[in-house]
């Protein structure tokens, strides 16, 4: 007990220090964990519901939406909102709320974890529920195999003691979750928009048979869009919506459908459609997912891209509102060092307007990639700040959009923050 208290205090101190230096979010968790290795499982021991959100794309947005809906229903929810989606990051985030006896007081913990860290988490804490979003190629230079990723999600589902929510349209997820003994609720696209499925799913080469369509059962939900921002979430016995999100596009609407399905599973009879729609409408896009910055009276959108499925969805999402475009590609560790994946993205939607500037360490590779899709690039400028200046100067009176990899976004955001007073990393811009 004393050991736990000491670990909590040490962790809190480390967190305060780390924040003052603006530093890493894993360190305080590491400090606490050294003193009391079982601190995480202890902290969550009194929390009745522990939900793990995992998958390749959309974890941050979906987690944010789910937490918002649960809180709107009056639940006390712990979450890891800064995108620190690894075990120690979860612990670090928990420290400020953690009483010295080391037990978190909350109704629910909703944590976002990448597939590999989800395995470490479930080794310490068995989740009551998990939400399995999708499997797509991402950072293959680290995780090597998409099959392996699918297997990790299957293990997360199998470790969940009470229930699983799974994407019926993702061949990997639906195969994995279809074999679970646990209670499974499914979310997916309404048949009326089934033609948009290829935009968002990977081909599963492992099996010859095509999975039979799954009819929605009790508690299952389907997304029925109205336009690029409004939609209904359709359960067999009730409808949520119309919901209008602050974020545009199919991906965000699917995330909202996943969050709604999970919220209903967790809340049971307490689930309220109107409360849910209202909560979803208030969710602000997380950092880098369609964040809009005012630059000289014109909007500039920053769009994080990290894998082919995500880039494809982003191009589709934003294609309906034309803007001057910049693409910034770095190949540092956090971006993924292999840029081959750019050839798995179809850029033809940029053909009509062209791209104003490509930038980042791999600026020329990006321009070359665009050239193969007959997309013209007006300028190639590897230096990010110089590229940003040229971009803004060339298109002063138009809305602007920058597609960028992680470290390129961090650098651009720092520059934009210095010039235009943005919120700090990990915090939401003021409303």
């Amino acid at each position, binding site marked *: 007990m004393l050991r736990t208290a000491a670990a909590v205090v040490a962790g809190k101190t480390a967190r305060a220090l780390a924040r003052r230096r603006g530093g890493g979010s894993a360190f305080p968790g590491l400090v606490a964990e050294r003193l009391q290795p079982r601190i995480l499982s202890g902290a969550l021991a009194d929390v009745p519901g522990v939900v793990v959100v995992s998958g390749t794309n959309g974890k941050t947005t979906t987690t944010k939406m789910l937490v918002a809906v649960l809180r709107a229903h009056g639940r006390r929810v712990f979450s890891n909102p800064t995108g620190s989606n690894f075990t120690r990051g979860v612990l670090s985030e928990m420290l400020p709320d953690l009483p010295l006896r080391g037990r978190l007081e909350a109704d629910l913990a909703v944590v976002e974890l990448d597939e590999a860290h989800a395995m470490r988490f479930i080794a310490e804490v068995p989740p009551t529920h998990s939400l399995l979003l999708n499997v797509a190629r991402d950072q*293959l*230079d680290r995780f090597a195999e998409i*099959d392996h990723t699918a297997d990790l999600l299957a293990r997360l589902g199998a470790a969940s003691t009470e229930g699983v929510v799974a994407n019926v349209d993702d061949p990997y997820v639906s195969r994995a979750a279809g074999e679970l003994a646990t209670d499974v609720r499914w979310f997916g696209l309404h048949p009326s928009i089934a033609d948009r499925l290829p935009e968002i799913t990977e081909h599963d080469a492992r099996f010859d048979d095509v999975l039979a369509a799954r009819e929605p059962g009790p508690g299952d939900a389907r997304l029925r869009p109205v336009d690029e921002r409004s939609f209904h979430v359709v359960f067999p016995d009730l409808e949520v919506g119309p919901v209008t999100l602050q974020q545009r596009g199919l991906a965000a609407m699917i995330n909202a459908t996943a969050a709604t399905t999970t919220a209903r599973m967790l809340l049971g009879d307490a689930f309220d459609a109107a409360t849910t729609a209202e909560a979803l409408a208030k969710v602000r896009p997380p950092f880098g997912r369609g964040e809009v910055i005012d630059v000289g009276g014109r909007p500039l959108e920053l769009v994080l891209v990290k894998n082919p499925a995500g880039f494809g969805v982003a191009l589709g999402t934003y294609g309906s509102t034309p803007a001057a475009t910049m693409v910034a590609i770095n190949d540092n560790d956090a971006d993924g060092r*292999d840029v*081959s994946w750019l*050839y798995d993205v179809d850029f033809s939607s940029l053909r009509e307007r062209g791209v104003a500037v490509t930038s980042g360490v791999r600026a020329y590779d990006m321009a070359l990639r665009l050239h193969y899709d007959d997309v013209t690039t007006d300028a*190639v400028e590897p230096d990010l700040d110089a590229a940003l200046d040229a971009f803004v100067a060339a298109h002063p009176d138009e809305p602007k959009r920058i597609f960028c990899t992680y470290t390129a976004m961090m650098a651009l955001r720092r520059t934009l923050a210095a010039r235009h007073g943005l919120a700090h990393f990990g915090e939401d811009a003021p409303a």
Partner: protein
Amino acid sequence: MSTLVPDGPSKGTITLVHLYPREMSIYGDLGNTRALASRVRRHGYTAEVHDHHPGADFRDDAHLLLGGGGQDSGQARVEADLDVIGPALRSMARDGVPMLMICGMYQLFGRSFHTVGGQVLPGLGILDVTTRGNDKRMIGPVCLDTEFGRVVGYENHSGSTVLGDGQEPFGRVLSGQGNNGEDRTEGARSHHVIGSYLHGPLLPANPMVSDALIAVAAERATGRPFEPADLDDPLADEARGRQVRRLVG
């Protein structure tokens, strides 16, 4: 099938076949096909691109073949079909049809693959190479010295490949791991068949390799020597030059 027609009169039609684009093209390997077809067109020829899927009729009249890397599950899915089209592939290779096989397909074009568990899987034997599965993954950017000049790409493989006696490599490693991380060789080249671990994808940033493949294919397609157009590639040259400077200074 898709067809790319040149702006002016066509000098002839070159047929490209991409083997198993669904199962065996990971890490952007489709970019090689796209780059070749586009370059064929820029040289003034018509490019006809066919996808070959497992179980379908094989175009043994193709002028140029391409294959990519896959995951283990993808490789398992094409083995039966490779048994069927294997004899045709071997005779086309002997006959001088240019081929570019990346990563997984490079391994399958070799003599055999030895799994970590001790199983020996026979390959097509078109390239005299043997591959052993191991736990170490060789990942990272690569720069090679080849007969086509300096070539850049990105490797990502767990198999370790060894060349047979007299088997030429595709290139010498200046930076990166190559076939096995030890003997500084990368890939293999026999006649007009190139096997390599380089993704990136390989061809867009290294157009001189495309031109070497297209030259042979054009001659086979038209019966006349290759009539290249005078192309310049400022973006590819800059992309490649920057990587070379980063990797070997």
